[in-house]
């Protein structure tokens, strides 16, 4: 132990609040004899200007190397206590108020003893802390957007309008995505050309946007802030600048190889799919009046550099063929919603001739066998299409067969409008579609509201097929190193970080993350753009508090590489695992998993924890009172414990809580050491699995504790000496209950036989 460090301890009574249970005077007296303690000061309000001035003065005059503040929760007064004239990572905090005095009010004697133990532990933590200085890392100012649908286009425009360069990469020969193929779009019922053309003109007018159509990502390398992306571009074979859209190429091509834009498109020129061409044929080149065709153009691979990436690869329709009972592909007049958009745009006359049209909702969606989720837009899509039909031809009978109608917010107006226009809504899904006379389709359906079976026939049946992520998303996800959720959409922590993916500086927007309509796609594009901009300032300031591997101990078993939820690790030039400072999210899951306890975080090291455990008095309450060491995750359990304090929920003082970034950060060797040296019980409290901010931290913590529990059993010790509890942020009662129950259980088990 380095006794030469000068440490100042500052006790705050918080205007008497702390002293309701803790005898601060006694605490100060005892602490003054501890190694390294140079000054100890008790104050009624440390966070006041005078309090801060006092600490600053001491730091300067006495040359303090470390400062320990025993006061409120470390989540309070963060600003105040980081400006003490000493590197803020050398300042330790002891949570005397929320996690001691307020929760042990009726037991001042024990509260004081616990406070002393906490303070002693924190002194050791502080002694072994390291100063950290933020680093300035160079970063690029450009962004790359993948997918040129409404989401990708809007994200590109938003970023470019702040003066940053954007590379917009689109797989197909045209921008616009699925919206370009719609007839009208809700809720305003405008033709998509209106919105898209405005977007296209913004793209055209902005020299900062570089558009690459018919292009896909080959590979991506480099850290966040400095991605290097190889893009493969198929040739268009038609010079979009020259093309006058006369359509001659389309007329002469014997092979249907000309891909002609159908709706509003950008670039506004066809493309030629050379894979379909006959050897030697150059009919189109001859027919083109403006000589825009170059059949010998070749595939290009280019290199783009970007500081951040936005994924906006969109969706594709669910293929209803497997639902044989609905007759898609077998019956002529059964079409999907997307096909209906085309029919409505081009064959209005055909629709006007029909007497009855039926829409069937939830095709593929909300069906465990196919898409287990709600596709979100299909109700509105069918309602939109039904209204358009009614506006076209009042006589057409329009039925919508549904499970539930979902029209949140102002969309309810369109639902109402449809009913007023005479659209008939039937709660029930037709069981089987059968061919009838004159291309009609017969079916029966049980109307669950009326309680009767209807036998109907329709001229056209529209299947409201669901949305699934674009094909190729899995492969793309693998290349970029992001994860997909159980429905294969791009995964994100929907509530807290909806735009983030598992990789730093890679964000998602639009339907690649979840089914959504145009307005929400555009919204999410804006949000992703703002997130991306934070990485495009030309430099990134980061504190090196990421995980670091002690190469003297590491045996390169690579467990850290495997278990890091964010794929932050790679082997360095010497062959040791090294976490990328920009990819690491500081969860500590690698620190918890390393079998050799060789990984530490900048703010919390294995040495700190180990040294702290050493100085805890195993019998601080009494010989027969169990001592529990609690590891509380920063995002939930620790906050719940603080709330227990704020609300004065009481629990026994046998519990010493330590904050860890994630339940997954607790290393087995720390637990083993604590048990081996006589701590009676270890409680790890983390988020419920589905809420873990670091995806798998809680789950890993549980498995690791199970291993230790098994080991204890083999050692003829009680496996109950280690325990995991799931505590959400808003469950202070549950937290207090878990502690109380654990204390009683451990009392029944008796002392840890390894306590000396």
């Amino acid at each position, binding site marked *: 132990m380095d006794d030469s460090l000068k440490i100042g301890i500052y006790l705050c009574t918080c205007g008497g609040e702390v002293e309701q249970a803790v005898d601060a005077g006694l605490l100060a007296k005892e602490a003054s004899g501890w190694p390294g303690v140079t000054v100890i000061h008790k104050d009624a309000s440390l966070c006041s200007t005078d309090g801060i001035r006092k600490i600053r003065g001491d730091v300067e005059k006495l040359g303090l190397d470390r400062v320990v503040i025993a006061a409120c929760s470390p989540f309070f007064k963060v600003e105040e206590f980081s400006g003490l004239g000493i590197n803020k990572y050398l300042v330790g905090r002891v949570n005397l108020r929320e996690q001691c005095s307020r929760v042990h009010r009726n037991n001042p004697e024990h509260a004081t003893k616990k406070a002393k133990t906490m303070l002693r532990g924190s002194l050791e933590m502080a002694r072994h802390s390291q100063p950290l200085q933020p680093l300035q890392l160079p970063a690029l100012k450009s962004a790359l957007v993948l997918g040129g649908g409404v989401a990708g286009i809007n994200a590109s425009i938003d970023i470019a309008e702040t003066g940053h360069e954007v590379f917009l990469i689109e797989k197909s020969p045209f921008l616009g995505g699925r919206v370009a193929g719609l007839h009208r779009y809700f809720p305003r019922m405008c033709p998509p050309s209106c919105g898209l053309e405005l977007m296209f003109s913004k793209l055209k007018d902005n020299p900062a946007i570089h558009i690459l159509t018919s292009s896909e990502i080959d590979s991506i390398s480099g850290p966040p802030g400095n991605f290097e992306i190889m893009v493969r571009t198929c040739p268009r074979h038609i010079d979009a600048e020259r093309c006058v859209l006369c359509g001659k190429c389309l007329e002469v091509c014997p092979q249907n190889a000309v891909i002609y834009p159908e709706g509003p498109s950008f670039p506004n020129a066809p493309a030629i799919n050379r894979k379909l061409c006959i050897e030697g044929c150059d009919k189109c080149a001859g027919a083109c009046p403006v000589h825009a065709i170059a059949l010998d153009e070749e595939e290009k691979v280019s290199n783009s550099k970007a500081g951040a990436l936005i994924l906006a690869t969109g969706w594709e329709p669910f293929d209803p063929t497997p639902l044989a009972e609905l007759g898609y592909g077998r019956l002529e007049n059964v079409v999907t919603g997307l096909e209906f958009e085309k029919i409505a745009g081009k064959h209005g006359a055909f629709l006007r001739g029909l007497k009855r049209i039926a829409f069937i909702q939830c095709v593929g969606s909300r069906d465990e066998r196919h898409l287990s989720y709600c596709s979100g837009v299909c109700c509105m899509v069918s309602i939109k299409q039904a209204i358009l039909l009614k506006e076209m031809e009042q006589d057409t009978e329009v039925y919508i067969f549904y499970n539930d109608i979902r029209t949140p917010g102002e969309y309810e107006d369109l639902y109402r409008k449809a009913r007023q226009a005479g659209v008939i809504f039937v709660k029930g899904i037709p069981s089987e579609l059968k061919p009838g006379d004159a291309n009609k389709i017969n079916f029966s359906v049980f109307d669950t509201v009326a309680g009767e079976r209807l036998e109907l026939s329709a001229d056209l049946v529209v299947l409201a097929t669901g949305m699934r992520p674009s094909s190729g998303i899995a492969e793309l996800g693998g290349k970029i190193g992001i994860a997909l959720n159980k429905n294969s959409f791009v995964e994100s922590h929907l509530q807290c970080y909806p735009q983030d993916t598992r990789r730093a500086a890679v964000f998602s927007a639009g339907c690649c993350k979840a089914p959504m309509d145009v307005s929400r796609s555009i919204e999410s594009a804006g949000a992703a753009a703002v997130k991306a901009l934070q990485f495009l300032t030309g430099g990134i300031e980061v504190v090196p508090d990421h995980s670091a591997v002690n190469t003297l101990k590491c045996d390169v078993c690579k467990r850290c590489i495997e278990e890091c939820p964010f794929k932050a690790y790679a082997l360095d030039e010497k062959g040791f695992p090294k976490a990328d400072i920009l990819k690491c999210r500081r969860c500590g899951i690698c620190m918890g998993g390393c079998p050799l306890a060789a990984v530490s975080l900048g703010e919390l090291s294995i040495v700190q924890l180990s040294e702290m455990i050493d100085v805890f008095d195993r019998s601080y309450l009494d010989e027969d009172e169990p001592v529990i060491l609690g590891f509380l995750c920063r995002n939930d359990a620790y906050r719940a414990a603080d709330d227990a304090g704020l609300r004065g929920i009481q629990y026994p003082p046998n519990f010493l809580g330590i904050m860890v970034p994630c339940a997954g950060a607790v290393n087995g060797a720390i637990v083993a*050491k604590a048990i081996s040296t006589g701590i009676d019980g270890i409680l790890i409290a983390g988020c419920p699995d589905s809420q873990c901010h670091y995806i798998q931290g809680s789950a890993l913590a549980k498995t690791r504790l199970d291993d230790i529990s098994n*080991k204890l059993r083999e050692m003829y010790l009680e496996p109950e000496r280690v325990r995991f509890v799931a505590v959400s942020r808003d469950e202070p009662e549950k937290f207090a209950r878990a502690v109380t129950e654990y204390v009683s259980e451990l009392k029944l088990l008796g002392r840890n036989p390894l306590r000396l």
Partner: protein
Amino acid sequence: MPPYVVKDKCDGCKGKEEPLCEQICIGDLMTLDPGTGKAYCRSLRDCWDCMSCTKICPKGAIEQRIPYQLGYHGAKLIPMIGTDSITWTCVDINGKVERFTYRTRNKR
């Protein structure tokens, strides 16, 4: 007497190449079964009973069968490794349990 790997517990050290037991074994006896992805001792008679693999296995998956000179059937030696401590649990053939905790110099 050789190490015995409890298959359900071993996770092949997840790294898919050289697991810790393979790295630590002085006789290079432990290795992964490519079929199951689990560790095994490839030459039982060459084991020196040093228990390095038992100690290092993060999953507690390796049990050591104690050589008969030290204890007959029923005797056990179980290590538990802390950051800078090791606790040995010794069970003799009569089921008598003793535990010893030592400091190691593993801290940094």
